[in-house]
């Protein structure tokens, strides 16, 4: 399946680019520009591209804009995406580090629903926040929250994880309660991949499976380990795997990155990229 990954690059002057992505020597290449794979959307796209290559698939397309937090790049990307939606030939989207903006979220979602109604929708990071804030979470196929973000989805009043109410502590032993609460309030996608000490794969409030081994503690501290997981899932969905299977295998592969890379908390996610092929093999 052809796929578009939409997100930002942490450089103010990085232009809006759209095209297929390549990965060479831990650098992402798109439209003649080099993007270092440190964390964020470049890391997600790098892991998708590498996984796709391992699976014999063509690379994903990316749409990237420079944004260091003021939201200007995000808004440029949103507007462009809405404008060209009718020309896109993609069957799925993964939305990532974008400034949450309910107006533009809704424009993008409605444009997809009008022009590409059967497209699969995956959201993580800022776009997952705004998908929940907008009240349209249930229109998505997959969210990939960590435990803090799961509490945010469970809190029907919170506009951001920063404002999640205190009674929803980030207690991993209560994940099932948070999942149930998020579905009750229609603040979850049809599927969830909850990332934590134990990863949960959920469909419509039903926990289909979990993965807790192998476990490498240092992975929690490394920026981008959530991005790598969402990146691997994206490629597996491109391969046509069903969502629960893609989530299960990706969660396993992401854990094997830690086993094979033997990281300390000082590693970067780019350091683990060369371990991906082995991790996929271990995960099956």
């Amino acid at each position, binding site marked *: 399946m052809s796929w578009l990954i939409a997100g*930002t*690059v*942490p*450089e103010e002057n990085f232009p809006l680019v759209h095209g297929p992505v390549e990965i060479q020597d831990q650098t992402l290449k798109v439209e003649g520009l080099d993007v270092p794979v*440190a*964390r*964020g*959307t470049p890391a997600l796209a790098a892991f998708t591209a590498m996984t796709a290559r391992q699976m014999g698939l063509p690379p994903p397309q990316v749409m990237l804009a420079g944004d*260091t*937090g*003021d*939201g200007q*790049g*995000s808004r440029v990307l949103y507007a462009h995406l809405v404008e060209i939606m009718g020309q896109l030939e993609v069957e799925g989207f993964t939305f990532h*580090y*974008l*400034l*949450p*903006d309910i107006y533009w979220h809704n424009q993008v979602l*409605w444009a997809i629903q009008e022009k590409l*109604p059967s497209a699969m929708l995956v959201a*993580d*990071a*800022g*776009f997952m*926040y*705004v998908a*929940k*804030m*907008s*009240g*349209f979470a249930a229109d998505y196929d997959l969210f990939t929250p*960590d435990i*803090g*973000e799961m509490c945010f989805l469970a809190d*029907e*009043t*919170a*506009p*951001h*994880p*920063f*404002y*999640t109410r*205190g009674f929803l*502590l*980030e207690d991993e032993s209560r994940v099932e309660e948070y999942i149930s609460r998020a579905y009750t309030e229609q603040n979850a996608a049809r599927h969830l991949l909850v990332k934590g000490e134990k990863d949960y794969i959920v469909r419509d409030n039903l926990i289909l499976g979990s993965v807790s081994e192998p476990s490498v*503690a*240092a992975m*929690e*501290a*490394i*920026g*981008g*380990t*959530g991005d790598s997981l969402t990146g691997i899932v994206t490629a597996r969905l491109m391969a046509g795997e069903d969502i629960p299977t893609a989530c299960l295998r990706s969660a396993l592969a992401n854990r094997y990155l830690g086993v094979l890379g033997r990281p*300390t*908390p*000082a590693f*970067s996610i780019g350091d683990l990229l060369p371990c991906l092929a082995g991790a996929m093999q271990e995960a099956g």
Partner: protein
Amino acid sequence: MKFLKNIFGKAEDKPRGVSEKGILVFHHTSEVIEAEALLREAGLDVRVMGPPPEIQTGCDMVIEFPIMHQLQALDILEEKRIKPIQVTAVQDHLLEPVSLFNVKDFGDYLMVRAANMKITVDKKSLEIVNVSGGGCPDVPFLAGQLVGRRLHEAPEPRKYGRTLCGYSLQLAYEEMKRRCPG
């Protein structure tokens, strides 16, 4: 789809989801007026409004602002020494920020998490070795500014942060400094 939207237009008009607005509360009306001008000048979409009934403190005007830009707004005001007495999210009732920290000791490294943001430091050298979590676009930028620098020499996240994720990272950073005084 447009046809359906026209038919069910009223359903679309019905409020859904949560508000993306926050409220700044001040002691004095003069502060409200000055703050509004400063924030508007900086390009933020702000409005002066009457306070909701839940707010029991401050003067009889508040500023509504886009809450994602809380850190940027507070930074602008701090430069002019204007300090709101309360900052909250606009919902059916007032929401307080996350105030609990989660700390994990990896032996040679210490990690502090505030809300959705984590910062990890090498305990011997006090070098910031990782920043993780979050979802707003300033997070990867902040990570680039902080990682590889010593905790007490690195720029504070609020210097470059613009969003609530940046604010969460500032809290985690302050807690890390408290635990590792250097």
